């Protein structure tokens, strides 16, 4: 009974566990230096993202830079703090899948964003604002 569950859940990832050499461990233990290094990088990137706002690259470019820095920070957190690097690839897959669906959601909605803008402007014009 329990062995059957195992074959359902565990077998596809079995190759990875052996390849990584963590056969006996339950999960990877993140080294101290790596934890501190990631933290340092996150703090530096926070300072950078604040500093970059003081420079005017144009609204669009500033937004892109800020989002790029945020994405690097998010990547560091997910890869090391959330140990996706040593985790089952399936977790990375579903995580990236959720980001895909969020971006689909946002971009599809943005395509439609101006649909009612005309009638809203008309309403404000009528009200004389």
């Amino acid at each position: 009974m329990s062995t059957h569950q195992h074959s359902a859940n565990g077998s596809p990832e079995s190759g990875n566990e052996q390849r990584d050499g963590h056969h006996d461990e339950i999960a990877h233990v993140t080294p101290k230096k790596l934890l501190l290094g990631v933290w340092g990088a996150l703090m530096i990137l926070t300072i950078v993202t604040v500093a970059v706002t003081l420079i005017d690259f144009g609204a669009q470019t500033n937004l892109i830079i800020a989002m790029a820095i945020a994405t690097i920070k998010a990547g560091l957190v997910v890869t090391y703090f959330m140990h996706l690097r040593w985790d089952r690839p399936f977790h990375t897959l579903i995580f990236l899948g959720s980001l895909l669906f969020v971006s689909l959601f946002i971009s599809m909605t943005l395509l439609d964003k101006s649909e009612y803008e005309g009638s809203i402007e008309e309403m404000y014009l009528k009200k004389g604002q």
Partner: protein
Amino acid sequence: MAQLVADQLPQHDPSGGHGHAQDAEHAHNPFLAHHFDTPKHQFEAGKLGIWIFLITEILFFGGLFCAYAIYRSLHPQVFVYAHYYLDTFWGAVNTGVLILSSLTAAWAVRNAQLGEQKKLVFNIIATVCLAFCFLCVKYVEYAHKFHEQTLPGRYFNPEHEVWELPSYQRAHGHAGHGSAAEAHAVEPQAGSAGEVAATGAVPTAASAVPTAAGAEGKEAKVAPPGAPVRPRNVGVFFSIYFCMTGLHGIHVVAGIITWLWILRRALRGEFGPSHFGAVDYAALYWHLVDLIWIYLFPLLYLIH
């Protein structure tokens, strides 16, 4: 049949004497639930569960990010205007606090994996303290906004006009020195600064709501030349601000409750190298809360 299954799972059954060893382990390991074969099996099942939960959280917040994206792309001038009412300093402090708490959370997982009980308790307490620290800063910010009446929707009725704010003056020099960036923030159809105080409201209530507050001094303030005119519906920015940071704040509160529960279990010595799952899951959730703030900070505070 049993042979067939064993062939598929060489890593779990290197010796062939799997079944009996397992029964013995079940009898001796109080942290292993009956329906799991090994601690690793149990850990992996829980981990998949928490990841699926985190994915639903990302989709959950996705709705608010969508609202943000639509409103900002339609009315960028509202965001440029309204962000001067937020204090970048406190936003940055909170970012630092959350990142540090993420470090202590990740460290707690390491402690649990290595069986370092004292350090584990210390790091959990540190995480909880930093989470409270985050909420305190959030309280200071919210209190300031309630005081200044920089509130959502038609309740946006600020005590100070944007050119009076230190954040605005830092960015543009003192009021009166117009610049291209200020002109950018002006919505063309709006009238003088005094009049548009009334347009922050929902259209149907425009005439009724802000007049009382508008009478007590907003007319008296004379906008310096070059000062930005308030765009229509600035309050929507604060609706988005309070929804996003509020939902995030609720997650921080939930995180604190989770960590206190983990702390109680850690004090009872329930975690060790083969059974640290709960610490790891709590930390994963906590990192996600951090992750969302990493995006909220530049999107709300660092608008250019």
